[in-house]
């Protein structure tokens, strides 16, 4: 990058004057930026800060941090797995941001309708969709829960084509489950069980995570005193400087502003943000993970409903759709062998129930009435399959 060589010697180029002006300006910029950032992402207003959603005791959103796993309950439980359509709501008009962790999401609808008699009134409802549904991630989360004695009776598993056909990454929050030594040691054996029959590729991926944890331990072993001192100093700076303490929010703001601007330069269509091609290796791996996931749930006694999640029909597909029908047909064929029920909910939420995310029409989230329609659909289908019978309700 450029080094402006401003320091050319001139007859009037007083070194000390330059020093004072340059340093003074740099310090002024730092002070101004600190002041502006504290205004931009300061503490939330009192009303906002105290707003905590009170859900009934039997409705739990399981956070992504595996370390915060609550103890298992003795009663019956219903699990909801899916991508962000299960836990977020769209903006109501153009420019509005996504609404996360609001009342009226699918889990709330399922629980309240069951309480009203549409399903088991005394079951516990769990949402474990964070940070989205990517099959290997969800396999990890479910494996971790099962290892810690959580046992679902009924599972609703919402699938979207782009989560199956796109990449198979394991994000950091979910990866941390492998730091749980007991789980990391037990999981390969769980997967290798002949009734689960996870492929070598999946087990190898699990082993890769174990190796990653071992590398972390090695790095921890090599940490020096100066590293520890550095951490303490950083922590102190984070507490006293908004620029550091609130850096995540500031980074998100910068990213959003920049990508919106660049995106508009790049492509002025507001309907399509990005497009993805299907990647054969990822697709095959994800489908293998999905099969393993439902086998694992079935093996542990759950009744599993896989539903193809609602789609918005007035936008072009984000993901190459050519293999979608083939995938759905294959999964339908395998349903009997896997012992699961496949539901097609793609048309359950009409286009008028979808909103906005920033400046773009939202293709992943639908409004509260949309969640109500999907909840009603799922409960009706479950009742039709007599899923609640074994829960002795209703």
């Amino acid at each position, binding site marked *: *990058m*450029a*080094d*402006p*060589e*401003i*320091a*050319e010697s*001139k007859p*009037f*180029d007083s*070194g*000390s*004057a*330059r*020093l004072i*002006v*340059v*340093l*003074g*300006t*740099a310090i*002024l*910029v*730092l002070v101004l*930026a600190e002041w502006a*950032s504290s205004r931009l992402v300061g503490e939330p207003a009192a009303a906002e800060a105290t707003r905590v959603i009170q859900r009934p005791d039997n409705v739990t959103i399981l956070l992504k941090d595996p370390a915060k796993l609550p103890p298992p309950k003795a009663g019956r439980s219903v699990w909801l797995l899916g991508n962000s359509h299960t836990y977020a709501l769209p903006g109501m008009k153009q420019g509005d941001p996504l609404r996360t962790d609001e009342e009226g999401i699918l889990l709330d609808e399922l629980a309240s309708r069951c309480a009203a008699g549409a399903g088991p009134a005394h079951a516990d409802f769990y949402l474990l969709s964070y940070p989205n549904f990517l099959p290997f991630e969800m396999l990890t989360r479910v494996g971790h829960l099962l290892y810690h004695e959580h046992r679902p009776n009924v599972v609703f598993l919402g699938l979207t084509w782009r989560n199956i056909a796109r*990449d198979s*990454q394991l994000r950091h929050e979910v990866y941390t489950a492998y730091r749980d030594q007991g789980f990391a040691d037990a999981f390969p054996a769980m997967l290798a069980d002949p009734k689960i029959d996870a492929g070598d590729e999946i087990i190898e991926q699990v082993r890769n995570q174990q190796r990653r944890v071992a590398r972390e331990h090695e790095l921890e072993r*090599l940490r*020096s*005193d*100066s*590293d520890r*001192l*550095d*951490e303490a*100093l*950083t922590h102190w*700076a984070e507490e006293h*400087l908004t*620029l*550091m303490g609130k*850096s*995540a929010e*500031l*980074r998100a703001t*910068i990213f959003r502003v920049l*990508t919106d601007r*660049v995106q508009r330069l*790049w492509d002025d269509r507001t309907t399509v943000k*990005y*497009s*993805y*091609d*299907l*990647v*054969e*290796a*990822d697709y095959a791996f994800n489908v293998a993970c999905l099969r393993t996931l439902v086998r694992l749930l079935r093996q542990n006694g759950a009744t599993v409903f896989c539903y193809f999640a609602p789609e918005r029909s007035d936008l072009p597909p984000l993901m190459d759709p050519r293999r979608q029908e083939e995938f759905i047909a294959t999964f339908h064929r395998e349903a009997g062998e896997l012992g699961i029920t496949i539901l097609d909910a793609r048309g359950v939420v009409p286009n008028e129930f979808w909103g906005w995310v920033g400046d773009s029409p939202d293709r992943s989230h639908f409004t509260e009435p949309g969640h109500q329609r999907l909840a009603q659909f799922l409960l009706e289908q479950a009742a039709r399959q007599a899923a609640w019978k074994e829960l002795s309700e209703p």
Partner: protein
Amino acid sequence: VRFNSPIYLAFLSLVMLAVWLTPARARRWVLLGASYVFYASWHWPYLGLLVGSAALNHWGAKWIVAGPANRKWRGGWVLAANVLLLAVFKYLSWMCENVNAVASLFGFEQWVSVPRWVLPLGISFYVFEAISYTVDIIRKRERIHSFWDFQLFIALFPKLIAGPIMRAKELLPQIENPAKRLSSTSFLDGLWLIAAGLFLKVVLADGIAPSVDQAFARPYESVGATDVWLMAVAFGLQIYFDFSSYSRMAIGSARLCGIELVDNFNYPYTATSPVDFWNRWHMSLSRWIRDYLFFPLLGKKATLGAMCRAALISMTLCGIWHGAGWPFLLWGLYHGVLIAGYHVLTYRQRTAAPSGAPPDAGPRAGTQLIAMLVTFGLVSLGWALFRSASTAQALGLVSRALMPWEFRYRALSGTFYMHAAVLTLAVWAAPLAAAAVRRVAQSYDSLAAAATSWVVQGGMIGAMLVLCLIYLRGQTAFIYFQF
């Protein structure tokens, strides 16, 4: 020991203050003490290795000078000791693993036990400095210096971990005859270099690193040819920002303490040939390779065959210098082939030019641009080898990048493509921007204009530091620390 950490910035401030308050003659003791503390703060037992290595070379040099008749023979022993040090700490584990891999083919499992010791930070750099000093002593181009000055030459903290690789004749005179007064200009230049370096590391290199890491963690069969090119270019940008930022901060830190280090980068991605690239990339290593490997291998007759052979051997060794692993060796060999190929293509043209003929106008801008793009592509492809975790991944990625049918699909996100494209354009535009700034800076002729430029410089330093504070997340190491 990370330059991008608050503790380093606090340490540097203290050292700088001490250096500025200390009389010139005593400054070396402040710097030597600070350098030892700096190294010991990472892993104190290896401080002995650093001091011992410097002592060995100092006494080795005295031994060589003491026996003029056996200069080469004695020098050979000292050089062998340096190579042995590097071999034991850097390559022994890798060699044992390879021996075991071969032995396992014959049914011998874990035939030799693999040592698992920690790689001493900066060993490749300080051993190369010591070797260059010893060779210069053998060639009678260097003299014996005081023990402690030589210790400081080897251990000087700004360049200790990852260079620039200094020559004794460049650094020791500065240690022995320090400037009487440290100037405000050198302070501001140092500050500018540190701010710019931090920005390059924290914002640009660490910004693209997660996407690069994620892409290279994928099975290579799952990415298309366009993706491989993206991964290679993106890693090329990451390592450039990462390493050039380290070098800037090293040069800046040294300047704050009144020491000038040599430059390490000169817009390498605008190079128009592989040879030109190496004249711009990690320049202190390139000239070491050129002077202590390439020229001795070339011999007195620079025939085409000798040039190609010297290029292949020296670049392969340059590759393996970067790390104990087959991908590094492949990367070095690949660059050797590129340079040898370049010599083959241009040999006739160069030898046909009559000596003493006036230089022609040079290639046209269009040709230059094509040469730059081709060189950028070839160098980028090499980065795919360098970054790969295994030989299979290295060869798999490169072969996919070159197969036309692998361009059918892409697996990586549009944001990643956009990110790399913006950074590539910035890297190409940087020399033009630098030239423009230089022109403006030279054209001011009044105090008001100068003051404006100072305000701009201060504003830029402030803005870069603000962004660094926002983007300083976690403790990320510099890539070259592992070499």
